[in-house]
């Protein structure tokens, strides 16, 4: 119950200004009614993600998780959007178990982003 249980890393990540958003690949999941809506976007250059950014209607833990994940993806290969190890560093945020459902929304947004990458690659829209 104690909402105060946000650690310093959550607070730091929560307070950051929104970052630049790429536009080449995008992915969205969730809705306010579900308790969280998450949006990821990035540019792709030379097979690497750039300007990885996010937007979120979500609690502080999920906002911090988005921020941390976006930072980690900067310069990464698109496959890493769905790399099972990608979210490991979220442990540092000490997100309470009852928010597992909301982390899934974040994951879904990343998957959607990767699906968008694959679709755009298939159409040759990405070099």
């Amino acid at each position, binding site marked *: *119950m104690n909402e105060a249980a946000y650690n310093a890393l959550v607070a730091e990540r929560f*307070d950051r200004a929104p970052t630049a958003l790429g536009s080449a690949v995008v992915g969205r999941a969730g809705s306010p009614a579900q308790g969280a809506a998450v949006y990821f976007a990035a540019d792709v250059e030379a097979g690497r993600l750039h300007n990885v950014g996010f*937007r*979120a209607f979500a609690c502080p833990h999920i906002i911090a998780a988005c921020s941390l994940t976006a930072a980690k993806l900067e310069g990464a290969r698109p496959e890493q959007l769905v790399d099972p190890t990608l979210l490991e560093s979220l442990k540092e945020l000490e997100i309470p178990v009852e928010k597992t459902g909301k982390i899934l929304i974040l994951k879904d947004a990343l998957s959607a982003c990767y699906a968008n990458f694959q679709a755009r690659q298939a159409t040759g829209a990405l070099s």
Partner: protein
Amino acid sequence: MIKPVYLDYAATTPMDPRVRQRMLEVMGHQSGFGNPASVTHVFGRTAAAAIEQAAAEVAALVNANPDYVVWTSGATESDNLGVIGGARYRQAQGRHVVTAATEHKAVLGACAELQRHGYEVTYLQPTEMGLIEPAAVSAALRADTVLVSIMHANNETGVVQDIAAIGALCRAAGILFHVDAVQSAGKLPLDMQAQYVDLLTLNAHKACGPKGVGALVLNAATVKRVEPILFGGGQQRGMRPGTLPVHQIVGMGETARLLQLEMAEEVQRILTLRDNLWSGINDLPGILLNGHPEQRIASILTVSVAGVEGESLRFAVDDLAVTSGSACNSATGEPSYVLRALGRPDVLAEASLRFSLGRFTQPDDIQQAITSFRRAVTHLRALSPEEL
């Protein structure tokens, strides 16, 4: 760590140093400590006299007879005693009770307990503005209705009900009228005679007095007793047993005295502060006032913020001590049932903040609240995908 600005007076209040001082006088180990039931010696009689004075102070605030102030452990118990004890006292007349969906959980919980014991309860729905219309009360009355419980000012929205009108209806029908006046005491005039109130719930800690003490005041002209809900040594004419906590009661007496003394000026001061707060934030888009814009007490301002998530909103204003929904709900983490009853969807009920002002609130505090709130809303909207 810098203390946040305290704007949560509707949850509880800092104790006024004058109240504290009066309490200290009966917390000594040399004097003032007697058991008021010990009438055989001076320690007990001194304590009993202190309690009589406190009863006079409380009774004066609400125009009642001091002999009919029943001391309790707080408003939760007073609400329980008023609703359950009042209904049981009149049970020969029937077993139907009328209340509203927006009452405090202490009233709703007491009603649910009555239901478990064979009573029927009608829960009136408020208008979108939070009003319980006297006509709606009137329509709900039945031949077997024994008690109506409608609060004066709502703890989440500050909306004020027309208790005099509802009281008149009940009086005409010979039905007990219980009013929870916890949030309105000292903020609105209270007169049990003129407003036709039979049973009145008060506590001290929402008005700069001690926590853990309250009263159920009976209107001596209409109701001589209620059935007890606690059983024991026969204190307080059998209506509420237990050793009377002298320091607490003395604190509540002084609380009432100060409220009466300072009400007119203080309400004006708070009103100005609250209006400044409102005009400092309501130019932002999507800021919705909860509850009736005029029929409300000065000290509470509850807003819902469109397009932002509730938990993040609270976190973003963590330099302000405010509540989302009532303090009780803040422990359960559920969106407020009061705001939902006003027709707010869950997302908006969740993304609400209650600013509640009080005796020690200063213009600087309001300035900080405005700054913090604007920063929070702007930040969260910038982060939000809904804005894209």
